[in-house]
């Protein structure tokens, strides 16, 4: 997560103080990501050093020092908003590795491994949904954050469902070349 750009975005609305930036960052993300005030000031110092923000009172320090966006900062903010984050290389997902490993360990039922994780994910989703159910009506920012988390977890559950189905089919067609071990080899090679 880019705190740097999130702060630039808040300053895009107008000049602000450090403490104010922290409060607005937290409330603007549905209070899901707490932000350390030290991190706010360090980031602001770097942004100032890089010429992306400026202060009217360069000598003054502390919570009352105000910052505003420079032209370079504004350009950086717009460039960031319109550039998709790098998603080209898949993350090394522990859950994927776990399911692949379950296929290789004798005596382990991969379906059970899948179900343990599926249940855990659905329980997490139930908690997020409950939060959304309580708060979504009056907190748009929070609903967006909760949706993002629900879709992320949902994607993992769907992958588990697909893996479950694939394993079941593979067991019914023992002559077919199992796809999983080949994928496992490729992952090993990539490392």
């Amino acid at each position, binding site marked *: 997560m880019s705190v740097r750009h999130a702060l630039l975005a808040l300053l895009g609305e107008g000049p602000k103080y450090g403490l104010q930036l922290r409060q607005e960052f937290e409330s603007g993300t549905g*209070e*899901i990501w*707490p932000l350390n005030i030290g991190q706010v000031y360090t980031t602001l110092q770097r942004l100032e050093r890089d010429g992306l923000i400026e202060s009217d009172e360069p000598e003054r320090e502390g919570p009352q020092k105000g910052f505003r966006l420079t032209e370079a900062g504004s350009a950086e903010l717009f460039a960031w908003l319109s550039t998709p984050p790098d998603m080209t290389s898949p993350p090394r997902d522990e859950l994927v590795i776990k399911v692949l490993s379950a296929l290789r360990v004798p005596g382990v039922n991969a*379906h059970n491994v899948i*179900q343990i994780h*599926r*249940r855990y*994910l*659905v*329980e*997490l*989703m*139930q*908690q*997020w*949904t*409950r*939060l959304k*159910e*309580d708060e979504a009506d009056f907190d748009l920012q929070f609903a967006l954050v909760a949706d993002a988390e*629900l*879709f992320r*977890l*949902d994607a993992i*559950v*769907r992958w588990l*469902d697909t893996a*479950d*189905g694939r394993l079941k089919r593979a067991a019914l067609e023992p002559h077919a070349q199992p796809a999983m071990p080949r994928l496992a080899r490729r992952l090993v090679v990539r490392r």
Partner: protein
Amino acid sequence: MSFLELRRVSKSYGEGATEVRALADIDLSVDRGSLVAVMGPSGSGKSTLLTIAGSLEKQTSGEVLIDGAALQTMSHNDKARLRRRTIGYVFQDFNLLAGLTAVENVSLPLELDGVQARKAHAAGMSALEELGLADRATHYPDELSGGERQRVAIARAVVGERHLLLADEPSGALDSTNGEAVMRMILAACKQGVAAVVVTHDAQLASWADRVVFLRDGRVIDQTVPPPSPESLIEPSPEPSK
């Protein structure tokens, strides 16, 4: 006490070598006011479970109790009355009657049950109002959007004094915002004391439920445990001990 209870319910189709077991020894109980989701892939038996719970199909063995009464001891007429008065169904493809307006669709089960047309119409209107569809009452299904049609189907399922709501993939082909609206409505019905079962393959829909039951190959293989307070998600995690 649970309003719906399935005790060791099994269902088979065919006999001998061609026998297919759709459900095996299902135990499930749903309390008044609670929403249970049954989650499983296609072919796991979830739709069969719902039709048996709703007395639309008979189990091969085991017992189904609704409000303490066993379905297998009921006469045809008793079961028909139960379906008209107590159970509401929501299907994936809405199943609205094309020749009737929204309000006529909603009030139809009451009229079939002998409620006076005027009273049935009033109840239908108030169910539509609650779901934000009052201005659509006189429209025909083909004049409504997918989301509106599903809301009419839910209004029809909860109209009158229904206590059991059974929904099969209730968000069907709706987008996720409309799917969420559907689940909010089902949940609102539960808050008024309705017992509800939603079967789905969709984890996002299932996550609205108080309890999620996982079905595989006709068997309940697992279920969620009641979650801790949702606030645990947004409290900062304790510092790991060093």
